[in-house]
């Protein structure tokens, strides 16, 4: 058959039509994001070589205080509040930041007779944004990845919900959407995406706020409650506030023996 201009145009038209039908189907199948779902970057955005956090547990150490941080974080990031009939969190709950006892947080049984006050404190827990993150290592789709600035971020549209990262994380920092989270959102922040059922999520070190020149929600809240309770900055800048805090105080990190190099430090 001779290829005329007419038949070429027909073929081109058909191909384009097929592409129009096929590509949305493909993007639904692979769960690729639509347009404009990434964080907005504004002029005053904050940058670092390695973001890190220092928490002064002398200043933030009660359930009530940590509940405030949790509220600030969870409302900002549309983290659902899933409770049973009695109002207690279920074992399928989601949390980005929460509180735990000394022995839950520092599990190596550092001391059999710890100072009472220290043992009775409540400690904030969140993703450690490790330097060697096992969750990134095990993720089979690169849905969890490490940014050049050290933040361990997630693409919720690529996550297949295999939960390998949850098995891999030594800190229990990850939550899975066992159910549709949207009915459990009481205040909706329209500037941050909600998630769908069947994907994993966790603290993102407020990468979206940093892009807009804001400090993390928990850091902002903590310093509102008790000034100097939380430091956030560049670990590789000698004059940063985190490095200054690390120079001046005795700090520990969770499970250092796991070799993940956590980016969250606790002043005891």
């Amino acid at each position, binding site marked *: 058959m001779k290829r005329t201009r007419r038949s070429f145009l027909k073929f081109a038209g058909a191909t384009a039509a097929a592409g129009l039908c096929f590509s949305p189907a493909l993007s639904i*199948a692979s769960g690729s994001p639509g347009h404009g779902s990434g964080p907005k970057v504004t002029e005053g955005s904050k940058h670092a070589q390695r973001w890190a956090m220092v928490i002064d547990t002398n200043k933030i150490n009660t359930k009530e205080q940590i509940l405030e941080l949790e509220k600030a974080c969870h409302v900002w990031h549309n983290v659902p509040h899933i409770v049973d009939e009695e109002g207690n969190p279920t074992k399928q709950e989601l949390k980005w930041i929460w509180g735990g006892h000394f*022995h839950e947080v520092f599990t190596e049984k550092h001391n059999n007779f710890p100072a009472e006050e220290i043992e009775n404190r409540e400690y904030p827990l969140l993703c450690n944004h490790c330097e060697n993150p096992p969750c990134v290592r*095990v993720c089979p789709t690169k849905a969890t990845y490490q940014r050049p600035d050290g933040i361990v971020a997630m693409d919720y549209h690529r996550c297949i*919900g*295999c*939960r390998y990262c949850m*098995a891999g994380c*030594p800190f229990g920092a990850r939550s899975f959407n066992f159910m549709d989270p949207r009915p459990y959102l009481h205040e909706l922040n329209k500037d941050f995406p909600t998630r769908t*059922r069947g994907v994993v999520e966790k603290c993102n070190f407020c990468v979206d706020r940093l892009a807009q020149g804001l400090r993390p929600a928990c850091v902002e809240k903590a310093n509102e409650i008790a000034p100097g309770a939380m430091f956030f900055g560049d670990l590789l800048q000698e004059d940063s506030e985190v490095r200054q805090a690390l120079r001046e105080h005795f700090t520990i990190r969770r499970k250092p023996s796991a070799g993940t190099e956590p980016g969250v430090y606790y002043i005891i």
Partner: protein
Amino acid sequence: MLERALKGGPKYWAWILFLLAVIGAGGGVWIWQLMEGLTLTDMSRDVSWGFYIAQLTYLVGVAASGVMIVLPYYFHHYKKYKHLVIFGEFLAIAACLMCMLFVVVDLGQPQRMLNIVFHPTPNSILFWDMIVLNGYLFLNLIIGWTCLGTDLRNQPHPKWIKGLVYLSIVWAFSIHTVTAFLYQGLPGRHFWLTAILAARFLASAFCAGPAILLLLLQVVKKVTSFDPGWEATKNIARTIAYAMCANVFFFLLEIFTAFYSGIPGHQHTLEFFFVGLDGNTTLVPWMWTFAIGAVVSLALLIPPKLRENKTILPIALIILVIATWIDKGLGLLIGGFTPNPFEGVTSYWPSWQELAISAMVFAIGGLVITVLFKVATSVKQELEVSQKGDVPGPVEEKPSEAAEAA
């Protein structure tokens, strides 16, 4: 050849219908799970894998076990396995399929599962597990189907198949090693973080898998005229006895390391298994059943007199299958997540929905085994090979056999 699966008596069709009914019912629950999410399971933030992934782990072993028939036959020219090789390969096909289905039903977003292929990530062991499982499935499918087809036409097996067979033997070890690597490379899970895990997996695979195969062949012998042959059966039983010894030995190594070193992290899960941890005793009766079952099965399998008793052997094998299933299909997964990263205990027990969906996957596997075994036995029957009497000649002599037939 597949049309041979369409000829069968009322009992055969009743069995097929039963499997289809289970698949249908379980499929309904799976659709429900797809609509509601994994909240229908008892999995949680702390025990984030459960019954599904545990079955994957167990069935990878069953898949890998075919090699215990294939290896002696091809590497050591052990002719008595000649007519059993195909059953080992077909069992591996069904087991691989079930493994992959157990991953699919465990995914939160199964419609996105091809992301593993679209975004290949070699640093993830799950990526490699996908490759080795698919690879093993297709290797066995190609080898099994080709060999059976050429047997039926009284032709020698094509030369190229030998390369694939040798590859499949190495591959069998890889599937279970890679599956063990899924667990043993995780820094925060003490119970899994042990170099012997892959070896343990292989040992338990090489006893449990052939045991299941022997039990299936007993059924085949009952319902068809195909006889696996007593000599071959005895020899497989010997392999099973050795592998179970290694399996129990490796488990005892774990116990020694944990309790002699006195390191709490290594002891917690074992305490959870046998005495309970923080008052949670969910697995205690199960793990004691495992321990007793392991000892009893060894007591019945090690002395040749008992092992080679036609009544005792199946009983010993059933006990062994139950014991190894508790160890790997229940304890290994739940134990790995207990204690959780906060040194606490979060309870887990599969919900009825999880069990129903798992029943669906097992029924699909059962259907595949039934159909493939049906095809294989009907071909063997047509060729009038049964291992009752003399064992037919080795593969190498096939051309002359074919010539004689001509």
